[in-house]
């Protein structure tokens, strides 16, 4: 129970689809989802492999709680060596696809090799087929989903696919499932595209059972009540992640114009409340309603409709319908980071990112970098093909997102990601990345814990690998001074380990605003056989973190990669809570290594490896 104890292994080179038993020894150590899939990747590929070579593997994995009635049980992860980063990538997505994969009877899908011609995978419980995707190649995510459901005559098929961005080699292509849910970061969609795999479609009817049903139902109910009663999760229900825009901007950790400023004068125009404002033009609001991923009782998802009179969609009726709306990181990356305050344009760009399968954060931040290159005169209309990449230009955003989505014109350059783009034009200092991945929407100069969290994140800059913002800004559980470095190594480690454990359960991390690891632990224990005490859960988190680190070290990453761009380390913030401060990474990094039980050069020590049974 819990685990189906079954893996589906698809070799696209050979055209084979085989099932095999789940390695239960590993499952007892790594639980599922992020942890277990990372273990498989670690054991099965050479970390030095070129991410887009056939020898890289792409693993789509569920967790033991995926597909149960625990709240937020719709998660799956895409684990691979990231095309954007060259580091281990683990992108987490909600929607309905993950639960469906579990219902089809699989804990994990391992995709190997490269198909000769474009294909898609159709999974109908035990019936698994690799089918030609010649009619789908060149099509968007939305067209692909529609075509597959129609062709197989089942509207309940769930699809995870890549758009044209993933076909044309954009470094930050994502895997989009259920039209607008994405395993977004690190270029997992790029890897999928390199395998000539357009889509994975699933219909599952076998169901999921839990180990201790009575106990499980009780815990599931109690933990749902916790979510219902928490102000944090209620905030998510009402405003989605967008609800934090005003707070983060007011605090002064809202990176603006490629991190040149930390506060954006137009933030309130693109935040959670703005989505509820009635538009003069059509009398509607941007926000249509909130929507849930599978099993989620929070329902932070936004469904939006663009003003049909807006220039971005005026002659494009296909975009006049409702679709997935902005969440905070997307709104920030394409908005604040580019100095753009046009909510409708951002919503349009969001639609296109979903439709063509691009990570909104990396796309937005890459555009921000390109805008800085342009404004500084490092690139001109000649390079951009006439695109006027001015900060604040919604027109530029709309044009750029279309080009990037198709990998055409300057869109091809944008698809390189900030790091390669800026290197290409001779100004690497403009790229705001760690390990090649663009930052999320928090400037670490005013939340020092994030300096460490960003620098040491195993998948490159990311807010979901140790969200110290929760304690530094929001005071979830406890409140720490955001400006000091004291205790930040410890809190970062704790956040990283907790997140690693949470990500291995199959649940979302958002309940963590209302829960502690305790609730996750109770759910896992009731759901799964074996001992999953709190102690084991913390150990699990730390084990997963160290495993990812070992992968990266073997891939050739060193302590030199645990750093931040010069701008954050050397240029003080001009305003906000961190005014006058830089990111004080050096003060925290050695302490962090020590706490982790790593050598000064960032290698997990033998003792640590042994202690954690990595």
């Amino acid at each position, binding site marked *: 129970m819990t685990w189906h104890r079954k893996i589906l292994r698809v070799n696209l080179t050979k055209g084979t689809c085989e099932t095999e038993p789940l390695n239960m020894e590993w499952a007892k150590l790594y639980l599922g989802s992020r942890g277990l899939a990372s273990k498989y990747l670690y054991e099965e590929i050479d970390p030095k492999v070129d991410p887009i070579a056939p020898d890289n593997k792409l693993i789509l994995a569920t967790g033991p709680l995926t*597909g*149960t*009635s625990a*709240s937020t049980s719709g998660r799956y992860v895409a684990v691979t060596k990231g095309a954007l980063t060259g580091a281990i990538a683990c992108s987490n997505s909600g929607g*309905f696809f993950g*639960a469906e994969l579990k*219902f089809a009877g699989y804990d994990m899908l391992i995709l190997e090799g490269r198909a000769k011609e474009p294909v898609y995978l159709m999974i109908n419980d035990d019936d698994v087929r690799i089918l030609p995707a010649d009619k789908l190649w060149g099509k968007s995510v939305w067209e692909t989903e529609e075509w597959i459901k129609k062709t197989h005559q089942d509207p*309940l098929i769930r699809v995870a696919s890549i758009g044209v961005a993933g076909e044309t080699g954009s470094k930050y292509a994502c895997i989009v499932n259920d*039209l607008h849910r994405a395993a977004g970061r690190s270029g997992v969609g790029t890897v999928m595209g390199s395998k000539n795999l357009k889509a994975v479609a699933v*219909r*599952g*009817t*076998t*169901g*999921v*059972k*839990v180990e201790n*049903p009575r106990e499980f139902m009780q815990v599931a109910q109690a933990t*749902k009540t916790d979510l*219902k009663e928490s102000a944090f999760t209620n905030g998510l229900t009402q405003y989605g992640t967008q609800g934090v825009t005003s707070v983060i901007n007011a605090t002064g950790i809202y990176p603006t114009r490629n991190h040149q400023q930390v506060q954006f004068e137009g933030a309130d125009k693109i935040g959670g409340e703005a989505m509820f404002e009635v538009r003069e033009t059509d009398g509607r609001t941007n926000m*249509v*309603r*909130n*929507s*849930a*991923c*599978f*099993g*989620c*009782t929070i*329902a932070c*998802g936004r*469904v*939006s*409709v663009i003003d049909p009179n807006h220039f971005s969609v005026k002659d494009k009726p296909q975009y006049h*319908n*409702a*679709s997935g709306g902005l969440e905070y990181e997307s709104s920030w990356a394409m908005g604040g980071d580019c100095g753009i305050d046009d909510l409708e344009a951002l919503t349009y760009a969001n639609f296109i990112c979903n439709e063509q399968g691009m990570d909104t954060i990396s796309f937005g931040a890459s555009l921000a970098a390109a805008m800085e290159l342009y404004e500084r005169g490092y690139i001109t209309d000649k390079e951009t093909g006439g695109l006027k990449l001015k900060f604040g230009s919604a027109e530029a955003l709309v044009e750029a997102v279309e080009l990037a989505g198709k990998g055409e014109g300057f869109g091809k350059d944008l698809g390189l990601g900030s790091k390669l783009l800026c290197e290409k034009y001779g100004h690497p200092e403009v790229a705001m990345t760690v390990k090649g991945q663009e930052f999320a929407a928090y400037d670490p100069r005013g939340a020092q814990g994030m300096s460490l969290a960003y620098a040491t994140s195993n998948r490159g800059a990311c807010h979901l690998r140790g969200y110290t913002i929760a304690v530094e800004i929001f005071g979830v559980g406890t409140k720490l001074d955001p400006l000091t470095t004291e205790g930040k190594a410890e809190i970062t480690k704790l956040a990283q380990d907790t997140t690693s454990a949470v990500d291995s359960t199959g649940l979302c991390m958002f309940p963590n605003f209302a829960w502690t690891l305790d609730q996750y632990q109770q759910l896992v224990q009731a759901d799964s056989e074996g001992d999953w005490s709190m102690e084991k859960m913390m150990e699990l988190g730390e084990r997963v973190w160290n495993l990812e680190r070992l992968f990266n070290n073997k891939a050739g990453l060193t302590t030199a990669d645990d750093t931040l761009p010069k701008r954050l380390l050397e240029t003080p913030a001009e305003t906000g809570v961190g005014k006058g401060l830089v990111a004080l990474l050096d003060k925290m990094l050695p302490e962090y290594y020590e706490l982790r039980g790593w050598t000064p050069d960032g290698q997990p020590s033998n003792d640590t490896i042994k202690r954690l049974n990595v």
Partner: protein
Amino acid sequence: MQKSLNIDPNKCTGCLQCEMACAYELEGSFNPAHSRIKIFHFEEQGRFVPYTCTQCAEAWCLHACPVDAIKMDATTGAKVVDEATCVGCKVCTIACPFGTVNYNQSSGKVIKCDLCGGDPACAKACPTEAITYVDANWTGLDKMREWAAKTDTGTTTAAAKPSAPAGH
């Protein structure tokens, strides 16, 4: 007072907790594929519509069953499939004009909503009160019932419609 399921699509977020609860009640596992309540998603409108049997008075399924396998629960008014009697002929699945009786190929029987004996799991599981179990008089099911009457093939018993011409 007889109760019935009241469905308010405006409140539904599409989380499918109801589908899981239903399937769990039915077969002890989380398996939306076998749920008797289904959420339909109107992507273009951002709208989620929960849909299940209204336990209509006409009870086409009950009347169409050739082996007397669908009976009315006197307490709840639910039309209940007796699994042991159902032979799996599927006539009820085409007879129900609401499409709320489905054939389950794995069990070889049909499945439909039975109101969980008067304590519907879907309503309990719904986090937003999009599905509630309330006094029958209150429910928006009236509309569906009106529509049901349009399908009437003269099969309503005379007690309900004395000497009035049935049908259109």
